[in-house]
């Protein structure tokens, strides 16, 4: 029975500390990416909707280019490419920069969808009432756009969780990278891949739950 599938759960318990540490890094990377990406993406979306011609064209070019390039290639750029421009970053910040650059392009489009859904009359009315740009966006446009933005925004957060796995390739010790190392040193692939799949599903499950709760609150 050489080809029998073995599943040794004790090996996971043995390395649970390393796996939990890696999960922590994955969550850290995800939270940092989401926290930086969200305001940037909103800025990109606003630039495309309300910016002048130059700003709009710049934002549109940025979004188009980075939505056509694989995340892995963007990460190679921030990890291997930036040092040749004179900026050397540790693996984790380099991965963060790459993930933010890539995710901002996608999320910018998601948020723009919500902005488009607000009727243009709202902008004109706010202007007629003498509200500043900042007040208009903060008090009039965003509150109306949130219900439309929420589902694509939450889906994008789940995509970001999954894209943090790519950081494992540029030597960040997050969940996928750590699983790969554990597989190489123990040869127990099934156990570690199953464990990390469950951990990812756990993180994404929490996000899906948050989405349900938020949607209930905003409707």
């Amino acid at each position: 029975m050489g080809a029998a599938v073995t599943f040794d759960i004790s090996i996971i318990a043995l390395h649970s500390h390393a796996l939990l540490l890696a999960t922590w890094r994955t969550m850290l990377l995800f939270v940092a990416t989401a926290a930086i990406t969200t305001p940037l993406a909103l800025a990109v979306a606003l630039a495309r909707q309300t910016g002048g011609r130059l700003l709009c064209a710049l934002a549109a070019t940025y979004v188009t280019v980075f939505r056509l390039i694989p995340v892995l290639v963007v990460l190679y750029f921030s990890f291997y490419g930036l040092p040749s421009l004179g900026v050397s970053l540790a693996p984790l910040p380099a991965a963060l920069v790459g993930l933010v650059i890539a995710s901002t392009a996608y999320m910018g489009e998601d948020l723009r969808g919500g902005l488009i859904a607000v009727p243009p009359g709202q902008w004109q009315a706010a202007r007629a009432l003498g509200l500043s740009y900042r007040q208009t966006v903060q008090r009039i446009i965003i509150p109306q756009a949130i219900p439309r933005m929420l589902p694509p925004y939450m889906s994008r957060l789940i995509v970001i969780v999954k894209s943090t796995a790519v950081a494992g390739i540029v030597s960040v010790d997050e969940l996928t990278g750590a699983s790969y190392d554990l597989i190489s040193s123990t040869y127990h692939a099934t156990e570690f891949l199953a464990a990390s799949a469950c951990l990812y599903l756990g993180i994404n499950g929490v996000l899906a739950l948050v989405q349900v709760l938020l949607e209930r609150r905003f409707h």
Partner: protein
Amino acid sequence: MTVWLVVCILAISTPLSVLLAFFMRSRLRAVRALLILLSAFVRGIPPLLLLFAAYFVLPVAGLVLTPVEAAVAALSLSIVFYFAECIRSGLAAISAGQHDAIRALGLPRGRALRRVLLPQLLPVALPPYVGYATEVVKGSALASVISVAEATGNAYQMIMATGKTLTILVVLGAVYATLDGILLGLQALLARRWKWALP
């Protein structure tokens, strides 16, 4: 190699997703529930992890795949449920009355499919389908991790050999942008030909 990977993945996952989409509309509740659960499960796992699973776990189960086969299998699995969701939404857009009308007119199945169902299905399903097809192009870069010599893997070797990091990465980015551009261009062409509103 990148193009070959993408063609293989699309050729496998497209018909499979049509099948899945039909089963997701099955009359049996258990089948529907099972597929929806499976869909959520697969879509919640990073493609890279699926890739490792195909490469490391399948051999343990006695199924030894070459890196290319493992990459095609894993990346097909990671995208097939996204495709199935597109097609399902397309099918949902066709009202039940259309099926009754086809029967009332006595249209043969083949002609009904070609003249009535597809023209209504494609405008809804094609734009998201092409969107996910560009995800396949970009996702194929991950195959380099399990030593498939596709565009990103080769570029990585070239960077390590020559040290001309930026030049190579810019060219690599342009290659992917071109491949995705071809897909998006095809979609625009079809949309214009059949006079649908552009996405």
